[in-house]
């Protein structure tokens, strides 16, 4: 009953004008790539509607949908289980797992998939090993299964991070009571925990969905012909078709975003949040299997590709002694890209956290339609191919000579392009976090006469911070591995680790590529730890 009253009270609140204005401006800026795409469809006589029902589109579209549904389901289950295990149970080694479980996100899929193939496919490291024990069963990763496996392992952190952030903030007293009343761990989880984390789970799953429909690297290497591949193969030879297919992809993304928005309204807010010590659920007999399963995931998603990268790098470092070709890179080729990658991605992540807050408030607190529109625009852009975002940056900056002169090829436009591509990753967890500010807490502070600004800092921010940090962590790692935008939009002479890795693999300099990819993984581990994990632990 109390819940109902506070909710209706909240509903009557009008959103502050400043927030609405900020959200409108953000939405307008974020709409640039989408508007560009629509414009190109009009000017190049594309026929997206006609194409939609042609065989050429339908079969890749069906494959995209198949793959995406499978990946989203498995990443949601995996991410949630891992979050619950590491945050709410007495799982051994959970401290180290908390740091390394988000890391698979940092593998650019074109590197990750190549590394997987290197390790698991015929003639690869794992196969060699299996063969030595005398088993002649070779597994070949490709097609739907290969793409599903690689994408699931590389995207579960989208669910893991926001759900873990949410779990840290939830009171555990209900769980305790449920358990005391004789419920098993599983049924406690289902009845008590799941409803409370639903909005974060949904937000994370949406990110997995959008990531998967827009992925190109993994499906390309796994030879699974999806819509992104059709967009890619036609981009030079038949641009109108490519533009039309991209518009279809973007519409698919928008539909997913709208569905998620409608769904997420159905989950009730938690009544209370405690900042008190979390009581851990004892795993008892499940301890060993749960530990084994968690480490199996780490092994597959992190160690397997890292071994392949390490193998490539070690070959390169050793071959000089064996009289082979020396490494093609010098120390400067490593330091400069590493520094560039680090500061650009950190800056992007921080700005992303700041710009998603107003929209999160409008959506989750005030349920404003302007907020919903901004949310739909910012989130669905995540599914847009990087190449098109890059082209749209040129299209818009070249409209005026001032922008062409002062914005084209600058860091400003690069970071803006990154934000357009990745802010959705900060927005989804931030929305979930704002939605979780308990109404009772707010009402109380309102009654006590705290000012809006003061309330924001003392009441809201501590609750929202873990989710916000988790979101910027996602933006950070995605920005670090971004390729197509970086290649085209970055200033001249602005190498990043990913562009270097791209060049290495493109021309079979695998040792150099392996070495640089290892540095990328290491750098992201360090940065995520400093900026996200350590701080969110500290705050929760």
């Amino acid at each position, binding site marked *: 009953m109390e819940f109902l009253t506070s909710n209706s009270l909240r509903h009557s609140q009008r959103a502050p004008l400043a927030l609405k204005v900020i959200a409108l401006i953000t939405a307008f800026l974020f709409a640039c790539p989408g508007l560009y795409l629509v414009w190109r469809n009009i000017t190049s006589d594309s026929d997206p509607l006609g194409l939609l029902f042609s065989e050429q589109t339908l079969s890749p579209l069906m494959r995209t949908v198949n793959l995406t549904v499978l990946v989203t389901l498995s990443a949601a289950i995996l991410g949630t289980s891992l979050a619950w295990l590491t945050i709410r149970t007495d799982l051994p080694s959970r401290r180290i797992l908390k740091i390394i479980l988000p890391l698979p996100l940092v593998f650019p899929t074109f590197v990750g998939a190549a590394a997987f193939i290197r390790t698991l496919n015929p003639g690869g490291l794992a196969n060699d090993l299996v063969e030595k024990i005398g088993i002649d069963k070779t597994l070949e990763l490709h097609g739907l299964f290969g793409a599903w496996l690689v994408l699931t392992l590389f995207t579960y952190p989208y669910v893991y991070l926001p759900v873990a952030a949410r779990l840290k903030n939830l009171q555990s007293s209900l769980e305790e009571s449920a358990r005391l009343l004789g419920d098993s761990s599983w049924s406690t989880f289902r009845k008590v925990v799941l409803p409370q984390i639903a909005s974060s789970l949904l937000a994370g799953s949406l990110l997995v969905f959008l990531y998967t429909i827009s992925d190109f690297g993994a499906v390309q290497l796994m*030879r699974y012909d999806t819509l992104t591949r059709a967009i890619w193969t036609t981009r030079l030879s038949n641009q109108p078709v490519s533009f039309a297919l991209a518009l279809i992809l973007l519409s698919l993304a928008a539909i997913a975003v709208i569905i998620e928005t409608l769904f997420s309204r159905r989950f009730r807010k938690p009544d209370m949040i405690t900042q008190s010590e979390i009581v851990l659920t004892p795993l008892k007999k499940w301890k060993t299997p749960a530990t084994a399963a968690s480490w199996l995931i780490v092994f597959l998603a992190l160690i397997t590709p890292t071994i392949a990268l390490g193998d490539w790098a070690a070959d390169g470092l050793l071959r000089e002694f064996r009289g082979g070709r020396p490494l093609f890179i010098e120390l400067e080729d490593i330091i400069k890209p590493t520094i560039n990658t680090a500061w650009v991605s950190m800056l992007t992540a921080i700005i992303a956290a700041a710009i998603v807050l107003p929209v999160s408030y409008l959506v989750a607190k005030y349920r404003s339609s302007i907020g919903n529109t901004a949310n739909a625009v910012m989130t669905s852009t995540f599914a847009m191919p990087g190449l098109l975002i890059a082209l749209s940056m040129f299209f818009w900056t070249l409209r005026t000579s001032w922008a062409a002169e002062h914005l084209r090829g600058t860091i400003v436009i690069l970071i803006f392009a990154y934000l357009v591509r990745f802010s959705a990753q900060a927005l989804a967890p931030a929305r979930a976090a704002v939605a979780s500010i308990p109404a009772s807490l707010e009402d109380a502070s309102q009654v006590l006469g705290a000012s809006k600004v003061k309330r924001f800092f003392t009441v809201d921010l501590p609750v929202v911070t873990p989710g916000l940090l988790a979101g910027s962590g996602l933006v950070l790692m995605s920005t670090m591995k971004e390729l197509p935008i970086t*290649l085209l939009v970055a200033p001249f002479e602005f190498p990043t680790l990913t562009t270097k890795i791209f060049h290495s693999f493109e021309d079979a300099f695998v040792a150099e590529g392996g070495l640089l990819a290892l540095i990328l993984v290491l750098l992201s581990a360090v940065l995520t730890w400093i*900026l996200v994990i350590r701080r969110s632990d500290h705050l929760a």
Partner: protein
Amino acid sequence: MKTKPKIILSSLICLAFLCASCSSSSNKREELSERAAQIVQGDCANDAGKEVTIYSGRSEYLISPILEAFACETGIDVRVRWGNSTDLAILINEEGKSTEADVFVSRSPGPVGFLEGNNLLGSIDQTVLSLVEKQNHAASGSWIGFSGRKRVLVYNVDQVAPNELPNSVFELTDPIYKNRVAIPATNGSFEDWFTVFRDQHGNETATKWLNDMVNNGAKYYPNNRSIVEAAGRGEVDMGLVNHYYNYQEAAALGSEHRAENYDFPSDDIGSLLIITAATILETAKDKDASNELVSYLLTPQAQSYFSNKTFEYPLAKGSKPNPILPVLEALEIGSVDFDSLGGGFEETERIVRESGILN
């Protein structure tokens, strides 16, 4: 505790600015990278006060030492946007007249044909064009070839006996090659090659060949490198690729890499030479400096870099390929009609898609 990330961030930003001031186009010999220093003969020239902007679809590893050496020897500053040839061509098209690119270097002919079709290419000076045989530049002067990659059949030496190797790509549709051949069907060089194939043998023959290949269980791979790598591991027996990947892979992995190149007879379409081309944009700001850059790619020192460091075929008149490469025969060069490639590309893409190899 809370200020730490800020300190790290600000110190990184400072470092970045410090690094930005150490620009790569230097005018001092001792500042050159090791590989560029091997190319430069003599000292660096004084700053000429000119600048050329290149959009390069050739990767940094393969060409940046040459550009660095050019900057040193001529005193002309060089700015490069690296990327995939196709994406860069699309970018130039999007930028149109206001593109920053003066010179565009492409890995394969397709993107050049695309830009030519959109009237974005200017013409290269006659003196530069005359550095190569006339079949290696466009009659209109819109592009010039500076190095070449040959199409070959890469094969795993443990799984393919020498007497099993075919005399022609046409033999690959034979049942003895069932499920054994890899094709990089969406790769730029493959599409270029297939377009020439159609041009030489007619659409019907070429389409039938590809469909037969698919019926014979040919496997699709996304690019040349992944085929060479897979053949080296034994995942696939053989594949149609560009010649130089195998040299790179063997140089990198040594004897662990179990694949070798096989050259089809020189009159077979399977041994076509694919040209890497340089072009000067219609809108190039400094045409002289641009021509100077393109001609530098054809100097003996640059050509010897291509043949000895990247294992490509040099195309300047009088230059000698690396002795480890098989000798180029007459028919191979000169059969690429760029104009037909640009227009024929769409059709190639359609035939590839309809063959079902992607599924």
